[in-house]
């Protein structure tokens, strides 16, 4: 089942395109749309949007389940009660620009939902509505966790059916002062290390998806600035979506290193999907 958190905005209509495409591939072909009546969007507007969604679902043979939720203490709490405890389900929500246009995820409902463990969550920033939620080229930056991409798997397998090309990407962090003075042989060693990791992931992918319809590319980059590395790769490879994993960071880390994910969201050259990393 696909669960869509819809705030009644135009932006969520774009997110809904992904939800529709995902629901079409679900075994139960169900789309649960949740809207919290927080007073920001009029009930009539929401009703109209749900009616349009209903129509699209009917056209694609998807069972549409709309739910208007009463406001609890917060939008997040209201949603949490309605989200099914189902590891097979996938919750989709949008990440919209916040005050002063500086943040997208921090302090948002999407951030709270990503912490939720009732089901896998995908927070989306849609900047190319023309793709209609069906990206063909995907960039997957991987941080090198031992767990591989188990966390992203529920999302990846839903995207996979429409993909033509997947770029696995590993940005190897190195401090800027060291980067400027990196010896060529050390650089080669690092690149090889990154490639070996990605080869392992690619092999896992090929094993998990027999006869996958897409081809897998691997890119490794040494960088002192991972958000910049991800953005460069996204532009260079002309990908239509980037799937980024986020982890909880300490306050000290945020103070000293800033929030890379916010920069990726701000300068996104393509749609960005965010999932909870290991």
């Amino acid at each position, binding site marked *: 089942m696909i669960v869509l958190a819809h705030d009644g905005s135009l932006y969520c209509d774009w997110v809904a395109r992904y939800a529709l495409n995902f629901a079409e591939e679900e075994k139960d072909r169900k789309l649960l749309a949740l809207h919290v009546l927080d007073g920001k969007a009029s009930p009539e507007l929401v009703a109209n949007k749900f009616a349009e969604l209903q129509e699209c679902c009917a056209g694609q043979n998807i069972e549409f389940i709309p739910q208007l939720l009463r406001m609890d203490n917060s939008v997040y709490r209201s949603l949490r009660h309605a989200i099914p405890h189902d590891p097979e389900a996938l919750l989709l929500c949008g990440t919209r620009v916040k005050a002063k246009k500086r943040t997208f995820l921090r302090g948002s409902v999407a951030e709270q939902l990503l912490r939720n463990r009732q089901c896998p969550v995908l927070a989306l920033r849609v900047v190319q509505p023309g793709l209609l939620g069906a990206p063909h080229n995907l960039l997957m930056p991987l941080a090198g966790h031992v767990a591989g991409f188990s966390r992203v798997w529920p999302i990846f397998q839903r995207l996979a059916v429409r993909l033509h090309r997947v770029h696995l990407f590993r940005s190897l962090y190195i401090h800027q002062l060291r980067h400027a003075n990196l010896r060529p042989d050390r650089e080669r060693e690092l690149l090889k290390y990154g490639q070996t990791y990605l080869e392992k992931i690619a092999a896992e992918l090929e094993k998990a998806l027999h006869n996958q319809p897409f081809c897998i590319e691997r890119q490794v980059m040494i960088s002192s600035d991972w958000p910049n590395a991800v953005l460069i790769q996204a532009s260079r490879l*002309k990908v239509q979506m980037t799937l980024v994993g986020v982890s909880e960071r300490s306050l000290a880390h945020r103070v000293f290193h800033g929030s890379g994910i916010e920069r990726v969201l701000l300068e996104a*050259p393509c749609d960005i999907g965010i999932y909870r990393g290991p």
Partner: protein
Amino acid sequence: MNQLRQIQNLEEEQVFIVLQSTPLGLNPAEAAERLEELGPNSIEVRDRWRLARSLLRQFTNFFTLLLFASAAICVVADRLQPGENMMILGWALGGVALLNALFSFIQEYRAEKAMAALRQFLPAQVEVVRAGRDLTLLAGELVPGDLLLLKEGDRVPADARIVAAEGLLVNNAPLTGEAQPVPLLAAPFPGRLVESNNIAFAGCLVLRGTARAVVFATGLRTEFGKLAHLSQAIRRTPSPLEQQTAHMVRVLTIIAVSLGFSFFLIGVFSGRPLWVNLVFMMGIIVANVPEGLLPTFTLALAMGSLRMARKNVLVTSLNAVEGLGAVEVVCTDKTGTLTLNQLSVNRIAAPLETADCEDPTFRKHLLQLALCASDVHLSGQRLGGDPLDVAIAEGLRAEGISITPATLAAERFFPFDVEKKRAAGVVRIDEQRFFAVKGAWEVLRPSVEKVLDPSGSAAPATPADLNRAEAVMTELAATGLRVVAVAYRSLNDSEPAECPQEQLEKGLSLAGFIAIEDPLREEVPAAIASCRNAGIEVILITGDHPGTAESIARQCGILADTEQQERTMTGSVLEGLSEAAVADALAGGIRIFARTSPAQKMKIVMALKQSGRVVAMTGDGVNDAPALKAADIGIAMGKSGTDVARSAAQIILLDDNFASIVAGIEEGRTVFLNIRKFTNYVLVSNGPEILPYLLYVLLPVPLALTVIQILTIDLGTDIIPSMALGQEPPEPEIMQQPPRGRELHLLSRGLVLHSYLFLGLLEATWSLCLFFYVLLSGGWHYGAELSATDPLYRSATGIALATILLMQIGNLLGRRYRLKSGLDRGALRNRLLLIGILIQVVFSWGLLYLPPLQRVLGTAPVAWQIYLFAWLGIPLIFGADYLRKRIFLTPVA
């Protein structure tokens, strides 16, 4: 599976639905909401702190920090013990540090000009429909869902899906690099977004017609925006020289600081006053740091860039001067770079015969059909348009047919499409209507059903005929000719010309092949041979047929005539490979990329860089900009290149000629070699500067050289000779050695040992010998203290300094040639060298015998016989170094 699920796949009315717009456009409130959510339609990556960060970075390198620290110590020392001129010294050191940092900042700032050139591709204002009204808006206010009005002469401000079009023709050169116009329609397109003929891409120019289009991507999310983002965000990797300089500065800083600190501690424990220890620590640091070296680097690079400009190689970033010398692989275009880009018809062949057909009727007919699928403009008697099309028209002229507006008037024309690899047209020849298509044989072959023989009759094409035609084409291509296949079919008067190209292309008859010659530049084979000798690989990247590319590669020497190994990869194969696989293929010997698109250059650059090689890449189009920036050295074409390519590149070839690249490489290698020479030269004087301090701290002897005297050498007399070495012409064997690679350090162990422990020690020993000789002959005895104003002490330091200056002349002459004496390079060939020698001579005399100089430097005269002894230092150091060369170094045969 999902082919029909993106914007280009939809019917016109669906486009409005999915983008929540209407044929009356968005209403202002909706537009404002979208603008708030997605931001302005701008391709600029906003980074308010970029300049500040760049400036700060210049002040954080080791060298600058060290100079500032030394300046601060001087200020402290001056406060503790006034009257020692330490404040002046502090200002001098601070000034050098500041100048170095500001110079580097200006360099970096000037290099970031690509953005201004890119901005010119987008309009400032656009016409849109909002709430049913036609409005003129700032392009930045455009949002997805806006209904855009396009007309002739407009630049497209954002990626937009055409929903209504009348005769719309656009130039997609900024994205595809292909100058041929492309017609756009409103109908759904079944393929990929980037190949769609119903999408107006940002940055492209409307050549003809009008259209309404719904915006679906703005700013950095447009295809042009991605290009712009890359052009701004890719940080060029430090050039080999930058890496070498950083390494050298690190090593020198460690040496200077550890020596200075050690002697500071020794001084503290031996009970000397703190300020004396501080001053000595600073003295040792100053003696170790070659203060004048970095400004001289910059001057040498600037002079190198001037010499390169004389060879038609314009350098936009000084580091590229030397970077070009480190190049290990050159990726080059063919047309215009290896060849003259002067196309002419060389051969006209019937479908099944390789020989040049001599039947004038056949030749005229084939050329007329080809002309029908060409875009040629007549201005007076001059023909304009794509060089290949013009060559066909000229060929027809040569057959006695005059080219008039009537000859060129086609009923319908389908411009060349880079993806389809063909152009077509409908025309009337001798009262008969034809649909003709010209292009790559491999794309026409599936549509060919008949084959024309020279007599003019068409017979059904059997598989054997098609194979034979392919063999003819391959044979022609193998001679280095660009081969264009021409096919046609007759049309009845009742058949409409308006139907889609694909429909007209059914049941074609192959009319023949036109082989076009683009002569190789005369100087290219020698330049390629020079690259080969210099261990530089040349990789050819072209849109031509593999046969043509291979033939050209053999003619110019990229491939040896005898080579049988597979050396060519086509664009379609390249598309399907990962970067790692491309790197493997390159390691396996691939040297030619044929039938490639400009966008694939980036993949080739990244694959080459993966293997750690220093890569130079040529390019001319807007879409070459990312590859030019990603390469270690981006080379843009000065004649045929776009502003964006020129801004992204570090090198601009003023004559578009490959041979100029090789001349530039030779100059770049010379610059690096010269930088090593004067680094070696400058470090030699560090020996006699350091040793007096060591002796002073360890033994009860006077200091042979004061800090001011050290700075006189480092920032005074050594500068002109260093510059002179920076101007030395190339050594004959410079292009017979392999590229030095990234591993070779500017400050190698051999150079350090040679500078400090051989020549430096020699200079130090001779100058100290004369120093102590003057002291001893003046009545000084071991352990006695002398004040700084004592005439005996002043004479002794004077002769020590004069000896170092004179011995630097012998050092200078020896540095001119790595393998031979240095005198054999011609004394008068380098005038700056003579000036440098003159300065050393005059200064060594002046500091001893001219009162004003004596006062500033704290020196006094010595007997002329002793001064003559100082001159003996020149043959001593020169001779010792020459002996080393003779014994240890072998000249290249």
